């Protein structure tokens, strides 16, 4: 008996109960589709986080102020949990700290920064954006580029001028398509002159990197945040190779200045590559989790196949008896029912891949899914195996029915 003939019998068997076959196929379709789609969502979010982090600049090291010994903040740097029984008072991160760091070997620039969230308004339009106060060196350290106008100058920092550089999204929200350079925006009621607009950087995970405004450090401290602690100090190393060395130097310098031990540090030193590895391991966990959920739905689809094939075999007991009486060997019956189950799962798998790939064209909860190429053959292959595995039990039952009993079955 040729495989083509077995295949034809299997197709006829499936066609005999189209609705049932379609519903069983749907189970596998959903399983395979969700594997492809959810893995793509996980991968997409991981890629967008990685893009955002690498846009921070490979040479940048960020010193972030933490609450330290206050004990309420969870410091997340590995090995340096926030001390709760510290002797030293947590100290502010200051401009003096930044100046001290500037003496370190291998440091190209140091930009102390404060940040706050403020409402910007121009005429009738307003926008809530994150406002950063820093030095001009902040821009290259953050990999920012201009699309219009210019950065503010060191001179303007020293004289605390009310000037601001807008992120591209903030600029669009306030001015639409008009050129903002030279216009005056109100930041928390204070008029600032727009001197430049930054080029679009794209989304960085949860917040937009473009809905920002950057003004001189002195101005922001004067008008808005006061002269307390800095939020962070952005240090740019002279080369990517020096990042780790510089990071160590920064830590020891600041420990010394703040009389800290590593167990009660009131600051954290981050660089893009350490953020990247943390973020990608998080994203990996996320992807695995999504994939596991999808795999479970594939498993449920597989059990659906077993179920429906058992029903089919029982329903067609008499037909199996007839086929056996006229000379079908157990092998041929097994092949027919296995082919039916595998066809169900493979049709479901193919449609599922199609649905999954179509699904990845849409943005899902803010994430642009990126298809993992391997997930397609993998999900399809697994669906075929599911047909063989979950169809095996019912097919085997059909193959070894006793013909005399099967023929008598009503």
């Amino acid at each position: 008996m040729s495989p083509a003939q077995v295949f034809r019998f299997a197709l006829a068997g499936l066609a005999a109960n189209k609705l049932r076959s379609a519903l069983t196929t749907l189970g596998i379709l959903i399983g395979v589709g969700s594997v492809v789609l959810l893995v793509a969502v996980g991968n997409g979010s991981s890629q967008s986080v990685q893009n955002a982090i690498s846009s921070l600049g490979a040479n940048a090291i960020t010193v972030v102020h933490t609450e330290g010994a206050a004990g309420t903040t969870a410091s997340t740097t590995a090995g340096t949990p926030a001390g709760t029984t510290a002797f030293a008072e947590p100290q502010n991160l200051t401009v003096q700290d930044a100046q001290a760091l500037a003496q370190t070997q291998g440091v190209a620039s140091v930009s102390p920064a404060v940040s706050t969230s403020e409402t910007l308004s121009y005429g009738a339009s307003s926008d809530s954006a994150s406002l950063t106060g820093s030095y001009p060196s902040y821009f290259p350290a953050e990999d920012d580029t201009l699309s219009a106008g210019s950065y503010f100058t060191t001179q303007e920092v020293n004289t605390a001028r009310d000037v601001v550089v807008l992120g591209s999204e903030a600029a669009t929200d306030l001015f639409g398509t008009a050129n903002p350079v030279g216009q005056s925006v109100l930041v928390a009621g204070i008029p600032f002159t727009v001197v430049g607009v930054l080029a679009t950087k794209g989304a960085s995970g949860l917040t937009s990197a473009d809905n920002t405004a950057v003004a001189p450090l002195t101005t922001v401290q004067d008008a808005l945040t006061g002269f307390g602690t800095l939020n962070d100090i952005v240090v740019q190393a002279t080369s990517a190779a020096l990042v780790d060395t510089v990071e160590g130097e920064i830590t020891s310098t600041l420990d010394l200045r703040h009389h800290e031990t590593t167990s009660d540090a009131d600051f954290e030193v981050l660089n893009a590559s350490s953020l990247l590895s943390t973020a990608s391991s998080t994203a990996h966990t996320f992807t695995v989790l999504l994939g596991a959920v999808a795999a479970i739905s594939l498993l449920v689809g597989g059990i659906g196949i077993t179920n429906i094939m058992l029903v089919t075999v029982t329903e067609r007991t008499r037909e199996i008896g007839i086929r056996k009486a006229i000379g079908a060997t157990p092998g041929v019956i097994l092949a027919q029912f296995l082919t039916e189950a595998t066809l169900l799962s493979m049709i479901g798998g193919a449609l599922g891949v199609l649905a999954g790939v179509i699904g990845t064209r849409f943005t899902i909860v803010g994430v642009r899914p990126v298809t993992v190429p391997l997930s397609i053959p993998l999900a399809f292959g697994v669906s075929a195996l599911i047909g063989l595995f979950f169809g095996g039990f019912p097919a085997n039952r059909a193959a070894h029915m006793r013909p005399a009993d099967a023929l008598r079955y009503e």
Partner: protein
Amino acid sequence: MTRPLPRHAAGPPPIAEPQLQPVIRLVSVTKTYGSDEAMVHALRGVSLEVAEGDYVAIMGASGSGKSTMMNIIGCLDVPSAGQFLIDGIDTSSLDEQQLAVVRNRKIGFVFQAFNLIPRMSALANVELPLSYAGLRAAERHHRAEAALRLVGLADRMTAQPKQLSGGQQQRVAVARALVTAPALILADEPTGNLDTRASHDLMDVFDRLNVAGRTIVLITHEADVAAHAKRVIGVQDGQIVADRRLTGPDALPPLLGQPAVRP
């Protein structure tokens, strides 16, 4: 005593084998179901030989063991004890797979309930045993058409079973039974679901097949069906209680060509 299956013929063919090896040979066959106290003795030592070209009716009331006999003769079931040979092949040594091949090559079944496969045309139903035998499509088609013409259904080849009358369905079943040119045609109550007219037509087909040399075993409880056979065997309580020969195995069937009795 045993002869290999035709397709696996090896060595020299038996040249001067004793004349007329029986198509069926049962030697002290018993069949029991269940065990211990619940044991049912369906057959209690049946011995029987059917010669090639013979036309045998096995008669008995329900529960007499005739269905069990039919299952054993049809290789659908195996004896509990005793020996059963079909066309010289001892079935006790065969596994499930080999029994399937014997059913395919040696036996053509006709059942009371027709047992055609639904949603397959008459032609496809008749081709089915040839598919299992591994024949190519063109050859299958050719032989299935010839078989359907032989039973007078040349014009209904593409019809599905549900579009056919009972008599027509049973004739498709007969075509399916004879298409492999089996050593034996085994019919289990073939007229049980047919009216008088269709029954007569069907028995006429069987008579003509026997004239053409087919060995036929009919299982029935109707005397007027049994009257078509050359030999009538009575079964009761799992044993053969009567064996009456109406005419010789090489003679013509007794009721060949008789007009139908109108009710």
